[in-house]
């Protein structure tokens, strides 16, 4: 049975989705437990697969027993196992945090919500696990369609329009990717990643292969929100319901980064990309521009959700730049940052969700007295903010260390400068929020506050526990990032480099 585990990771949420769509009519209350079971199963098998991969190397699984290049193959190595774990963990913690708000805001759409939620998770897991180029496209589109629906369920004034914009851009992105796959198929005759990888060195001089790479790359960049192809990101995450954006924002863009890494390492190969193409310098400059642009645009925002969205744009620049630096440190930093950024973005969105639940809006000037009325949520905000700035021992510092070191080693001074600048700008952003909440907006001395009782108007416990778990994760993963890098990430990179 154990050899089927890779398939189970994807199948559990998928089956749960189908069961849920049935329960939508039968008994809505069962939808949530089924979702938890589906994701929990995925998590369990993901852990098993991770241990197996760490012990005995990459797992290869042929769906229905048909061998590649005809059959579809699932391939789980260190990187996939790592990313496969993040998805169910975040999805599960999000369910815990969102139960109340789903129940209150989307009461009648609960069933469909959980169904699409599971489909999103299943699609994402498939994207990570698959080793077939076309299968990747299909699963990518499953994920995207689920996300279009999830994101449109929010604010009825603006969410559908924002989501429609996202549909158009997402289709362009996925279609570019498909076009790239088409050219690859013409040149190599295969859709299996490992197969293409072995055929490509023989034909690497051809311009069709380069076009294929560029199309795939640009398509993935659109989907991950790399500046300047990021325009769909802020609106979509701002107007979506928090339960959706909390799931999608940390995961979608990071998994797209994973896809880019997978394409670079396992399909085209690092030799081809760094030696034959002359894109490296330009991509690093583009990433630096993305970092600075994201940070500066975040600074210009008055609404916390939009600020968070632009911070995501900035972080994508970190990861893309780190990979394209071309040295082990930079790549290790980028991969570690996939994990770290998922967690800290999730923590940030949990905090924002709590604020919305209690105060109904997240504008900067509406945060008066929030430190006294929501101390635990604000503690979470400070911790997530410290991670975004890059203060040890939070996890954000450790990936920043590797990225900076990689930049110094590669002599990419613009990249190093943009990393430091964005850290400083993040400090300004975080402390601006702290100031808005800590200091009263009038001129009254804070001692007046003693006169009235400190009103504790905190989010419910079901929303605080996930925040606590995630905050503990930020510190724990930071302190033990050494192990993650040493045992999981570095072996993967060494394989790709050799």
């Amino acid at each position, binding site marked *: 049975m154990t050899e089927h585990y890779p398939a189970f990771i994807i199948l559990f949420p998928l089956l749960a989705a189908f069961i849920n769509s049935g329960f939508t009519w039968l008994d809505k209350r069962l939808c949530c437990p089924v979702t938890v079971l589906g994701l929990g199963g995925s998590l369990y098998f993901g852990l098993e697969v991770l241990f197996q991969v760490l012990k005995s190397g990459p797992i290869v699984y042929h769906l229905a027993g048909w061998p590649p290049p005809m059959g579809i193959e699932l391939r789980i190595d260190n990187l996939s196992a790592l990313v496969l774990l993040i998805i169910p963990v975040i999805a599960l913690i999000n369910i815990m945090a969102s139960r109340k708000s789903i129940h209150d805001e989307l009461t009648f759409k609960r069933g469909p919500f959980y169904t699409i939620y599971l489909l999103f998770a299943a699609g994402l897991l498939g994207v990570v696990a698959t080793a077939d180029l*076309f299968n990747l*496209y*299909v699963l990518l*589109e499953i994920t995207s*369609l689920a996300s*279009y*629906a999830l994101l*449109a369920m929010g604010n*009825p*004034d*603006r969410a*559908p*329009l924002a*989501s*429609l914009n996202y*549909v*158009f851009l997402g*289709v*362009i992105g996925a*279609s570019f990717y*498909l*076009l790239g796959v*088409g050219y690859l*198929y*013409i040149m190599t005759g295969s*859709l299996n990643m490992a197969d293409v990888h072995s055929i490509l060195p023989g034909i690497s001089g051809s311009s069709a292969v380069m076009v294929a790479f560029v199309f795939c790359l640009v398509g993935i960049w659109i989907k991950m929100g790399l500046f300047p192809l990021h325009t769909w990101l802020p609106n979509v995450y701002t107007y979506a319901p928090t339960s959706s954006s909390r799931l999608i924002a940390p995961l979608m863009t990071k998994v797209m980064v994973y896809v880019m890494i997978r394409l670079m390492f396992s399909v085209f190969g690092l030799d081809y990309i760094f030696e034959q193409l002359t894109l490296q310098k330009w991509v690093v400059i583009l990433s630096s521009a993305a970092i600075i642009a994201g940070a500066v645009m975040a600074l210009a925002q008055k609404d916390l959700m939009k600020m968070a969205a632009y911070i995501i744009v900035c972080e994508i620049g970190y990861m893309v730049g780190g990979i394209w630096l071309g040295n082990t440190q930079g790549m290790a930093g980028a991969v570690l940052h996939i994990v770290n950024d998922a967690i800290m973005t999730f923590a940030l969105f949990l905090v924002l969700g709590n604020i919305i639940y209690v105060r109904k809006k997240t504008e900067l000037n509406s945060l008066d007295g929030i430190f006294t009325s929501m101390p635990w949520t604000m503690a979470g905000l400070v911790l997530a903010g410290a991670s975004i700035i890059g203060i040890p021992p939070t996890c954000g510092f450790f990936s920043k260390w590797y990225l900076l070191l990689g930049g110094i080693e590669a002599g990419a001074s613009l990249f190093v400068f943009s990393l430091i600048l964005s850290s400083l700008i993040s400090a300004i952003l975080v402390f601006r929020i702290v100031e808005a909440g800590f200091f009263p907006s009038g001129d009254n001395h804070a001692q007046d506050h003693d006169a009235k009782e400190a009103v504790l108007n905190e989010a419910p416990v079901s929303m605080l526990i996930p925040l606590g778990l995630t905050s503990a994760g930020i510190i724990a993963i930071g302190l033990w990032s050494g192990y993650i890098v040493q045992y999981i990430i570095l072996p993967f990179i060494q394989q790709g480099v050799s």
Partner: protein
Amino acid sequence: MPDLMLEIINKYNYWLYIILMMIGLYAMIAKNNLIKKLVGMNIFQTAIILFFISMGYKENATIPIIMGGHGDTAHKTIEASQYINPLPHVLMLTAIVVTVATLGVALALIIKIYQRYETLEEDELRMRVKQK
């Protein structure tokens, strides 16, 4: 010059899909009406489907269905070059399904937008959204 013309004429399938793709892209970006944008998106995706299908073509080959594939002719050797490549067709069946699903989701979103704002022109929408 004649060589170039010959090249262009020989690769006419690629030119066709590129032109279709550009039309679709133009419609998505430049048109004001949401439905027209949607049609543009569809044309864009269809162009790529066309590209894939055209790549499976072989000269003097027939459709990839083996006549009398069961029974005593089952063990006859098959000349691959006599049949056009079926794989792109199969892939594109999946892609067409994806296209249709995306179309469905987009249409659902457009219906929601219309219910809210009573218009599908983008500039009017932008104005009304700002007023909210």
